[in-house]
């Protein structure tokens, strides 16, 4: 039981408790409201629910597959060419989709592939009939791939970068061709990372809402998330919302468990190299192939951005730039996102720390305890709790406290922080575990522990991924809208919120301008973080 006295494990338990409180509190609020009338929960299970559950799973699985498989090629191509002009720009661009509100991305995609899109004529010519846009399952898939292919690429690239430089050299010396290198070096590393990445993307797709409704083409494409939203926002049936959310979580747990089973349990190599330079190993034919892969991915991801820019610059940007409402919203967005990202990083660190401490204190052959599993994959499941559920649940809890207004920003920050955690965890964990493996015994022998260890030993080795995690969390928070539906939003008028407000009052051009502005703010953030990271 000594492990529970380890301060790192205690920090993890505290972090987990905070997350548990947020989610548990929301459920408690909803359940207390539902106590009077549970009929909604029972009546939720009918043929309609069966239909939407089937569709939810189907679209999420397809989206995951279509995002992850190409990402393997793209990540590999990027890893094989560690230095080329524009590489860091591509990586930054690949962090952007997360920050983009779903409606902006959908409009960007439609501007290309929609009925009146740039490619409509070409597609009409190809299909031999008038192009009707990519509404329906295909539209949902394209949008999901737009959001998740870059994400998967970044995570897989991250995994590839943990391969020691010496091993690439070895591969080169042994004369491994691209296929052998893939089979013996790249695939094993990526395969270890795949269940996590696929699980994350699956969760993001299963909870997709605006994309499903806008591009889905009709109620044929209805997901559980839509039903939960409807139950809370329009029917106000907390019992049904709780039942549907429970179903959504259960389904996700099953799928993620299957994914983890399918993935190999890798014994990580303890030797983590510090060598930065890695020779470019690809030869001419492979370079051409890799270039094509990267260009295709770049075009796919950049396309909607370019169309967002095109419609954005048609707005009266000068007026928008001097609009005090835009200034206020920008400051609010940045402030909230900053705090949320910091909180998210803190929570993720505490969980990562605790997990690795527990792993090292147990017998290697013993299987991880439930708590250790919670630190690991458990926290990821917060993603499938819809923000509207958290918002509504806490609203019910807080309503009698009379401080609902002042608590709205707190809600926004905490929910964003928790929702960003699964991303931050993915970014931090590999580096942390590697560092722990190398330093644990040394630190134990030198008597370095607690905060000293964090400051002197652990932080320097995870500083770079920590900055990445911070940037991800911040980008994610910048694009969020979900939580505040019931709270009243005057206090937290963020950029995406302002965008919707303009869109809702016929000012489509303004909305396009703000979307462009939001993108620029995100890109600037990414560059800033990159610079800080490099000088750190």
């Amino acid at each position, binding site marked *: 039981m000594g492990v529970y006295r380890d301060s790192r494990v205690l920090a993890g338990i505290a972090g987990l408790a905070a997350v548990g409180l947020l989610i548990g509190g929301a459920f408690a609020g909803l359940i207390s409201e539902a106590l009077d009338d549970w009929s909604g929960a029972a009546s939720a299970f009918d043929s309609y629910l069966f239909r939407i559950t089937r569709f939810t799973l189907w679209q999420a699985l397809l989206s995951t597959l279509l995002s992850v498989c190409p990402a393997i090629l793209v990540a590999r191509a990027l890893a094989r060419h560690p230095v080329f002009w524009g590489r860091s720009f591509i990586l930054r661009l690949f962090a952007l989709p997360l920050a983009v509100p779903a409606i902006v991305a959908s409009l960007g995609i*439609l501007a290309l592939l929609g009925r009146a899109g740039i490619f409509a004529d070409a597609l009409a010519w190809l299909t031999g009939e008038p192009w009707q846009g990519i509404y329906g399952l295909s539209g949902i898939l394209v949008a999901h791939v737009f959001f998740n292919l870059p994400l998967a690429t970044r995570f897989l690239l991250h995994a590839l970068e943990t391969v020691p430089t010496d091993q690439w050299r070895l591969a080169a010396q042994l004369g491994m061709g691209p296929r052998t290198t893939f089979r013996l070096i790249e695939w094993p590393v990526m395969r270890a990372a795949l269940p996590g990445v696929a699980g994350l993307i699956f969760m993001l797709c299963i909870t997709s809402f605006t994309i499903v*409704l806008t591009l889905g083409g009709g109620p044929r494409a209805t997901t559980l998330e839509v039903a939960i939203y409807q139950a809370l926002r329009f029917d106000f049936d907390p019992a049904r919302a709780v039942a549907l959310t429970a179903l959504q979580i259960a389904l996700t747990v099953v799928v993620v468990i299957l994914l983890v089973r399918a993935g190999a349990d890798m014994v990580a190599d303890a030797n983590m190299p510090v060598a930065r330079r890695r020779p470019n190993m690809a030869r001419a034919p492979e370079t051409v192939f890799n270039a094509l892969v990267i260009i295709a991915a770049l075009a796919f991801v950049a396309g909607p951005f370019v169309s967002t820019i095109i419609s954005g610059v048609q707005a009266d940007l000068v007026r928008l730039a001097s609009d005090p409402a835009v200034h206020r919203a920008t400051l609010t967005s940045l402030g909230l996102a900053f705090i949320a990202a910091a909180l998210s990083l803190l929570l993720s660190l505490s969980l990562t720390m605790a997990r690795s401490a527990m792993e090292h204190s147990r017998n290697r052959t013993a299987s991880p305890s439930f708590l250790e599993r919670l630190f690991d994959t458990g926290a990821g499941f917060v993603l499938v709790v819809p923000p509207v559920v958290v918002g509504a649940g806490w609203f019910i809890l807080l309503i009698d406290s009379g401080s609902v207004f002042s608590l709205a920003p707190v809600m926004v920050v905490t929910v964003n922080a928790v929702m960003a955690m699964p991303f931050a965890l993915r970014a931090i964990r590999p580096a942390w575990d590697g560092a722990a493996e190398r330093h644990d015994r040394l630190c134990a022998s030198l008597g370095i522990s607690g905060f000293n260890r964090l400051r002197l030993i652990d932080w320097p080795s995870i500083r770079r991924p920590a900055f990445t995690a911070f940037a991800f969390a911040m980008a994610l928070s910048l694009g969020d809208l979900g939580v505040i539906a019931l709270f009243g939003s005057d206090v937290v008028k963020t950029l995406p919120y302002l965008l919707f407000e303009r869109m809702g009052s016929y000012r489509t051009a303004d909305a396009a301008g703000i979307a462009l502005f939001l993108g620029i703010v995100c890109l600037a953030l990414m560059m800033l973080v990159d610079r800080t990271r490099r000088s750190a």
Partner: protein
Amino acid sequence: MRRQFLSLLALSTALVAVPAAAQDKLTIYTYESFTSEWGPGPVVKKNFEEICNCTVDFVAVADGVALLNRVKLEGKSTSADIVLGLDTNLTHEAKETGLFATHGISLDKVDVPGGWSDDTFVPFDYGYFAIIQDTEAFSTPYKSLKDLVDGYPEQKIVIQDPRTSTPGLGLLLWVKAVYGDKAIEAWENLSSRVLTVTPGWSEAYSLFTSGEAPMVLSYTTSPAYHEINEDSTRYKAMAFEEGHYLQVEVAAATTKGAENPLTKQFLEFMTGPGFQDAIPKTNWMFPAGETSGPLNPAFDRAVKPAKTLAFSPEEIAANRDAWIREWLDVMSR
């Protein structure tokens, strides 16, 4: 010296006045687009504060449905004096909660199609749902809902989801009012022309103005926005001979607000020019009360429905779930 003294005096009176003003406060719950800088909120607040010597506090939530949910959740402990922004789809349910008080004001100035006699809810604006066409995509408007339903399926329309949006529910009721028991067949035909169904009005209208579809479900007053603010007559509402479905937006006092004298004063003010003049060009709806002058001619050019279609709040409350389910079944095929 004298000016310094005066400003000092002004400052001290202001300090004394603060507690007094804090008592004279009116809290109004409403939906977001009402209080946005483009909405009627800022003007209404200014005009009312000038005559009441009080402070108006707006609390904005996403939309009318969220508004009702919020009040239901807060119950008797709500801080709202007035709830502004429910529509006739919600008034029956709202009344059932027992949280709203009778208004006790004269409805003489109220002017909505079909008249108004409710003792709890006071209308502040109204509009008719209409299909807007992009005249650059096609020029001949449809003459009836029937023409639209049976028309050329390649010509697409964007509509909103009745599960998540007021106009979406409006179209559902419109079709029901025109087709009655044959509504299912009508939706079967119409579904082949539906390009996509969006969660809310904003998404649908954005798709429409970006050229994705030549038609969208909106209001008869939508063309007035483009005419007044963009000097464009490209977008036109189509007049349907079966008539158009009516949406009336209302406000009501809460039981708590009934004790605040400002509540009644505001509801009366709401039916007059200080409030109503702001409605057309901010909320893009028709005023439901007295205005100080004629509306902008663009509103006169708006489609005048041959017939006003509307179900009673009770009918809607009793059938809404079943009708939505029916719609879902047809549209999911």
